[in-house]
Structures are given as structure tokens and as C-alpha cells.
């Protein structure tokens, strides 16, 4: 499978006169293959946007290598016409209409003006295209931003938080849109905090924390790598069931309305153990990890009771697992 984006050992330190040094990227790696919808996850301040800015030539990296569509990113100008991108929430002039905004960009980029109407239709802004952008809701501005990225009919679409401000219907539309462009062969790199969205639409994922990659690979495999073999058990005589299961070597903890057994490799063993004691199962449900659980564990940002989390701060006391190295299937 062809790599559309390859980043290796990317380093970037911001130096300010007043706020000193801040390491944004500390040897970050990422590979995005052609035709994928690739999720890029990480807490605020973890280096996601800096990575995208470096990739797109907006920020000068201190070290590492980056290629985009097979071209070193320092020559991004050579492939810019094949890449549609939005970085953070783009700012548009408030008194310009949505259509005028896109026409200006199309003109600057030498793109046919017909593409403007097509992009407006794709994001559902045709009927509000003549309104000033200042009157747009956050979700509409986001749609306009995505439209600006689609104007070039790109081979690679890079979207930084495209779901910001979208209502549920907008999220649904965005998911449909991204799937549609991916079906047309466009590779999509999407950075987002909406983990359920990423889980639904992405083929593969890279998770970044403190400027370094902590997990990457196909979504299913990243999730499988964090599968603790947990099952929810609902049955009569829960105390007895717990005792018997523990005697069989299961790690069991009580929860509301049942038990959770972890480290289970064969669920039939649970059924068999309880059946021998005349305890009949009412429910035996596998508790596979979702992306949110994996993300919170890997980035050490899981909220802790009685403590308020800080932006750009990870839990120093939490144990951060070793990076998971799962390569995408060829």
C-alpha cells in the first residue's frame, strides 16, 4: 500500500522570549496510506496541530523527515494543488459571503470557479452561500472551511477538527461526506477529539501524546491490543458466582447489577464453571475496549475523582503504556 504521508522523527521546539522553550514534537512518527481515512488523536497541546502545520509548510521543523504525496514537505508547493487542508478553525472575513470567500480562494489557487458551487453543494451551504460569513454559526463556518479544502478536488484531504461546532445532523453529514470522498479514492487525515466519530469513520489511527506517537495502526487492531478480556456477567446468586469464578482463577469485581470478569480467554469457561454450581447465566457480554478508553489510557488523560484536569497537562502519576506498534496490513 502506498504511503501518502510519512513522518519520521519529527521534532519541534517553540522558543519564546517570555515563555521559554516548549517541546511540541519529540521524535514523532506517522504513516498514512493511500485510500485510508486516518484518525489523528491526542489531547490538547499534544502536538497534533503542530504536526499538521509542519507537514503543510507553515511551521519549520527542527528535525526529522516528512513526505507528502511522495514529495518532501519542504517542497510542499509542488503538491499543494493536490492537497486540500484546513488547520484549526480557519478565519474568514466576516463581511464576505461564503461564495465570495471560496471564489477568492479558487482564483488565488487557479481552480475553476465551477468547483465553488460543487464544494458548496457537498457541504450543504448552497442556500446560505450569499450570506455574510459573520452571520454563520460555528457549524456553518466549519462547513465552509471543509468546502474550501474540497475546492481543489484533492487527492489528500487534511482536516483539523472538522467536526467542531457541528450539531448531530451536521456530524452525520460530515461522516457521510468523508466516507463519500474516501470512496472516490481520496485519502483523508482527520484530527479530532470526537473519538466515537473517529471510531466510526476511520480505517486507521495514530495517537499522539506529549509530542510522541503512542499508538498507531488499523482501528480494530489498536482496540484489540487493549482488549483485557473483560465480560459482564448477570446471574442469580452473585456472591456464590463470584467465589466460584475466583476459585477458578478469574479476576472478578462486582458492579451494579452483576460482575465483571477480566482476563477471560474463553467465555465458555465461565458458563461451564457457573453451570456446574447450578447458577444459570442471564447475561454474558464481552466488554471490548472502545477508542475512548484506549485513548484515555494511552494519553494518560483519564479524569481522576476529586481532581480537575488541566489543558496541556497529562497525569504525571498515571502509568503510560509502552507504545503499541501495529503496522497497517499491506
Amino acid at each position, binding site marked *: 500500500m502506498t504511503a501518502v504521508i510519512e513522518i519520521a522523527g519529527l521534532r519541534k521546539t*517553540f522558543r519564546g522570549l517570555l515563555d521559554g522553550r516548549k517541546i511540541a514534537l519529540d521524535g514523532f512518527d506517522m504513516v498514512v496510506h493511500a485510500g485510508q481515512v486516518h484518525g489523528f488523536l491526542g489531547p490538547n497541546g499534544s502536538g497534533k496541530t503542530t504536526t499538521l*502545520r509542519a507537514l*503543510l*509548510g*507553515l*511551521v*519549520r521543523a527542527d528535525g526529522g523527515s516528512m513526505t507528502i504525496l511522495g514529495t518532501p514537505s519542504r517542497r*510542499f*508547493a509542488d503538491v*499543494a494543488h493536490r*492537497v486540500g*487542508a*484546513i*488547520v*484549526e478553525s*480557519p*478565519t*474568514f*472575513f466576516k*463581511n*464576505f459571503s461564503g461564495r*465570495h470567500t471560496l*471564489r*477568492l*480562494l479558487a*482564483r*488565488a*489557487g*487557479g481552480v475553476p470557479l465551477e468547483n465553488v458551487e460543487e464544494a458548496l453543494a457537498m457541504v450543504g451551504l448552497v442556500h446560505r452561500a450569499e450570506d455574510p460569513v459573520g452571520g454563520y454559526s460555528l457549524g456553518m463556518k466549519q462547513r465552509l472551511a471543509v468546502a*474550501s479544502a474540497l475546492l*481543489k478536488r484533492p487527492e489528500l484531504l487534511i482536516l483539523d477538527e472538522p467536526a467542531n461546532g457541528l450539531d448531530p445532523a451536521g456530524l452525520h453529514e460530515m461522516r457521510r461526506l468523508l466516507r463519500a470522498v474516501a470512496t472516490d479514492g481520496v485519502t483523508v487525515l482527520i484530527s479530532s477529539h470526537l473519538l466515537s466519530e473517529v471510531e466510526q469513520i476511520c480505517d486507521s489511527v495514530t495517537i499522539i501524546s506529549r509530542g510522541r506517537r503512542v499508538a498507531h495502526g488499523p482501528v480494530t487492531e489498536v482496540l484489540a491490543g487493549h482488549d483485557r478480556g473483560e465480560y459482564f456477567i448477570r446471574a442469580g446468586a452473585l456472591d456464590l458466582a463470584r467465589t466460584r469464578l475466583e476459585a477458578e482463577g478469574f479476576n472478578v469485581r462486582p458492579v451494579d447489577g452483576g460482575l465483571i470478569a477480566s482476563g477471560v480467554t474463553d467465555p465458555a469457561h465461565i458458563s461451564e464453571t457457573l453451570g456446574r454450581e447450578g447458577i444459570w447465566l442471564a447475561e454474558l457480554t464481552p466488554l471490548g475496549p472502545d477508542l475512548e478508553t484506549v485513548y484515555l489510557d494511552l494519553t494518560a488523560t483519564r479524569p481522576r475523582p476529586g481532581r480537575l484536569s488541566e489543558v496541556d497537562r497529562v497525569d504525571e502519576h498515571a502509568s503510560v503504556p509502552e507504545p503499541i506498534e501495529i503496522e497497517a496490513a499491506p
Partner: protein
Amino acid sequence: MNLILAEMSRLLSRRFAQLMILLLIVTFILTVLVVLGKSKQPTEDMWIVARSAAASAAREQQQDYNACLNNPTRPTASCESLKPRAVPEEYLYGVFTFAHEIKNLIYFLTAFLALFGFLVAASSIGSELHSGSVVNLLLWRPNRTAVLGAKLGVALGFVAVVSVVFTLVYIGTFYGLAAWVGWVGHTEDRGFWIDLILVCMRGITLALVLSAIGFAIATIGRHTAAALGSLIGYIIVWELGARLIVETLNVDNSNTSRDQWFLASHVIAWMSGRDGYSLTTFADATMTLAVIVAALTALAFISFRRRDIT
């Protein structure tokens, strides 16, 4: 070419630029109304009074000029501004005389055009850098030098067109007003129109110089306010504060070299078009303004090319 067309469209669509044009028009209309309200065609009695007053003034000026020439401590060149110049139309009170007053009006227009250019050019890049919308443009046209060059070129072109149009309208309107409610004056004098055209060209050039400076400072400071703040700060701290201190402490006995420290002196020398109106020479003023524009523009391009766009 596409980039330049897009930038032109963007600049013309900007509310700030439109507002500044409106401000220029309002100022122009107010000036016209003031002239219309105060001026009347001269009567024969007014001419008699004016000729008498001019003759009296010319005698006094001649005495001052002679005294200057006879003063061994003053260089002869510095007496140039004291040469007798009194003419009757100066003493036609309540009469707008085109030939006599148009230059002062052009100086007034130049000041407005310079401020207009400074603000519009600074805003054309400053607001985009501050808001982050330049990121969007760079994703489409990643060549930073071309993007900044297009923005600077379009801003200067816009200021040049506005300046030329306003100058022509200004001269045409006041010529018509003078013919209607005042006196045109000796416009047939040899060199009058050439002199006026040169003043206008220097005024338009000054507006472009200030535009380039505003653009460069806004680029370096990443904000329109950086340019405006620098301008206000410079005027208060240096042109007013430092000049006062230098003159009070008499830091340097040579007025010529002291004057060269201040940009306002160079601007006056530049606009006068000849030596003698300011203690700075026209050649010095030209060189100083050119060096400042070149240095700031180069710094702006280097800064824009190298910096992280965040």
C-alpha cells in the same frame, strides 16, 4: 496573475478599505464646502487693497533678505527662503486663488493620502496575520515570497490609483471652484503646471513610501496595530519628545546634522523638492526615505519567509 487578481478582489471587498475611501471623499467634500462658503470673486476695490499690502510686505521681505545676506554667521543658501515673494493675490482676503493655494491643498491631500496608504497597506497584511486567515491562503499558494509580494504590490497599486485619481479630481475641482467663486491666478506662468505636477508626484510617492512602511511594520509585528502603534509611538517619543530634549539640551550646535535625525525633516525636504525649506537637503531626504523603505521591506520579507505561521 491569479494571485494578484484574487488579492485585488480581496482588498477591494474589505470594509476597512471602503471605509477609508469614504473618509477621503468626506474630507474632500468638506474642503470643497469650506472653500465654497468662504470664497468670492475679487472686486476692483479688493485688488487695490491687495496690491498696496503686497508692495508693503515686499519691502519688508527685501530688508530681511538683505540683512540675512549681510550676516556673516549665516550661509547664503539659508537666506533662500527669505527672498521677497509677496504677490497681490496673497492679500486678496476671502478669495480662493487657485494658483496661490493649490500647493498647500496638495500638501494637505498628501498628508491624508499618506495616512490612508499607511493604514490600508498595514491592514491588508496585519489583519490577515492576526486573524490567521493568511494560513488559508498559504495552503493554496505555499510560496510565501510570492504571497507577500502580491499583497504588497496590490496594496501599493491600490494606494497609487486612489492617490492619482484623488489628486486629479482635487486639482480639477479646485480649478473649477476658483473659476466659479474665486480667482484662478497666474497659471499661465512658465513652470506653474510643471511645478504642480512635480509636487503631486512627490506627494503620491510619499503616500507610497508610508504605505510600504506601514505594510512592513504590520508584517514584522503581525498586526495592523503594530504599525499604528509604531507610528504614534514614533511621533510622540521621537519627533516630539526627543526633538524637544535635543533642542533644550542643545546636544549639537549644528542644526543641519540635528535635523537629519528626524524623519519629519526629511519629509518636509522631500515635499519641498529643493534645498532650503528644511535643514535637511532634498538628496539626503530622498536617500533616507529610500533606505528606510528598503530596509523595512527587506526585514518584512525575511521575517515572513522564516517565521512559523501559527
